[in-house]
């Protein structure tokens, strides 16, 4: 690199940044990837699974050499109330793989090694403190030690993206637009995991946990099986923690103590605790995605589909699109926002923006209805099954009548009607 100048600098060595950098390097252009941690993945945390098809878009052969934990064949939806739970399980017994659990410090590091093989120059342990802006165009980055210059800077600096804020691509978050995730990695052993989760060999299981300590709040628990560990955590909207003045790890304690969960992790040893933010503002919170000499990708751009627990896949695709756009800009020797707007066009045409748009009303409606959708109805589901299975010499018809009567009186008909219209509005927004 002459005079500290290169063609593209990517800030942040996570899935989005690596995907951008590798796309650019494979097209034969110069790219430097700057990671603040000791290595890629050392500052990252997520629930637990990467998606097979989107990952193949960047790394077609990853299943052969990437450090993957388990192939998720089972997906549980578990609804907890204080003393009960209802679980629905979907299981795929074909050879198809939808997702694999991975450990980020291994998987992201592997991705960064692949990027290096493709010609990406990886610089670790380096924090970009500021973007260098000249004549309203981003022309480089200031690190703790040196200034580096580039034709294009791609911001893949994660959910907090202070750099996007610096140049006014986005405003600060409101506590209702981010979720705080906390998780524990618990060592249990392969055999026990297979036994407890009814799995064979490297089959894996994802569990989404609704309710109990977060009844009525916008938060969900999650559990993933790794090779010999289980990750158990929760994500809760920051505004809920603010409103209820509750510590996130105390909520996690209560999830762990619930009998339905406790038996799964019994005797396990905590080997790591971690925390991370998740951008949950959705479509309406997507920032300005590009400007002269700069594009923003991944979590920094708020690209998360929280209902489907998708984030790394959107990160990878956005990185790929930004990378492709950078290559075109370099070929045309034009780094203006006019050329870089191609990045947004690619995103808009893809599932990334289409999905965010489909779900644009989800969070506002959930914020409005969390007390009914995530408390009343969750309790009602458990109550229904309790009523349905209980054998107590009361005629079934009487029990059904009582259940219907209670449903209509506990929550008045107007509230039920309102809930119904909100659900229809939500579904219409998604399906229209």
């Amino acid at each position, binding site marked *: 690199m002459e005079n500290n100048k290169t063609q593209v600098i990517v800030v942040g060595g996570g899935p989005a940044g690596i995907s951008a950098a590798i796309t650019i390097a494979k097209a034969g252009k110069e790219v430097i990837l700057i990671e*603040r*941690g*000791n290595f890629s*993945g*050392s*500052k*990252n*945390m*997520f629930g637990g699974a990467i998606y097979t098809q989107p990952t193949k878009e960047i790394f077609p052969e990853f299943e052969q050499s990437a450090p993957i934990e388990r192939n998720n064949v089972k997906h549980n939806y578990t609804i907890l109330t204080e003393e009960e739970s209802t679980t629905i399980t979907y299981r795929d017994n074909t050879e198809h793989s939808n997702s694999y659990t991975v*450990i*980020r*410090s291994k998987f992201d590091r592997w991705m960064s090694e692949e990027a290096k093989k493709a010609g990406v120059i990886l610089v*670790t*342990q*380096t*924090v970009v*403190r500021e973007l260098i802006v000249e004549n309203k165009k981003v022309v480089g980055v200031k*690190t*703790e030690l040196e200034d580096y210059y580039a034709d294009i800077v791609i911001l893949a600096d994660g*959910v*907090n993206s*202070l750099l996007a804020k610096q140049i006014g691509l986005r405003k*600060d*978050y*409101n*506590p209702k637009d*981010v979720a*705080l995730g*906390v998780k*524990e*990695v618990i060592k249990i052993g392969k055999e026990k995991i297979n036994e407890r989760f009814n799995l064979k060999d490297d089959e894996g299981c994802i569990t989404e946990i609704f309710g109990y300590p977060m009844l009525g709040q916008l938060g969900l628990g999650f559990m993933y099986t790794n090779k010999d*560990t289980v*990750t158990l955590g929760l994500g809760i909207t*920051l505004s809920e*923690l*603010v409103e209820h*003045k*509750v*510590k*996130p*790890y105390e909520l996690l*304690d209560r999830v*762990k103590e619930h009998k339905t969960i406790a038996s799964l992790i019994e005797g396990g040893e*905590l*080997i*790591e*605790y*971690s*925390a*991370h*933010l998740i951008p949950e503002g959705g479509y309406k919170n997507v920032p300005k995605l590009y400007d002269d000499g700069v594009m923003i990708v991944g979590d920094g751009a708020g690209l998360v589909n929280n209902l489907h627990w998708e984030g790394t896949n959107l990160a990878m695709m956005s990185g790929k699109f930004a990378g492709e756009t950078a290559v075109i800009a370099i070929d045309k020797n034009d780094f203006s926002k006019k050329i870089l707007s191609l990045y947004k066009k690619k995103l808009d045409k893809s599932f990334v923006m289409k999905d965010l748009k489909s779900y644009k009303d989800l969070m506002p409606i959930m914020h409005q209805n969390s007390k009914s959708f995530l408390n009343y109805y969750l309790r009602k589901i458990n109550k229904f099954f309790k009523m349905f299975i209980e054998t107590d010499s009361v005629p079934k018809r009487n029990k059904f009548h009582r259940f219907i009567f209670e449903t209509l009186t506990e929550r008045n008909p107007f509230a039920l009607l309102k809930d119904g219209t909100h659900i229809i509005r939500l579904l219409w927004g998604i399906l229209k």
Partner: protein
Amino acid sequence: MNIDDRLAKVKYVNDEESHLKVNQEDCKKCKLKMCTYICPANVYEWNENENKIIVNYENCLECGACRIACSAKSLEWQYPKGTSGVTYKYG
């Protein structure tokens, strides 16, 4: 499980200087003191005797929740230096 047992499992490299800077004047006036609740690493503690916020920055998990929750918006929040802070092994 208490938070110290959890944090004992996290690998950190400490920096001598805090990457989190609070404005004690704002903290004194702040009624909510949200940082003392929401932080997943319990970095912030209100010391009644000294009338100030204690910042255990060496426990920080670098999530950024405090920055967003701070109602005074006066928290100076930066990432730790490239060689310091948290290193996850199982993220």
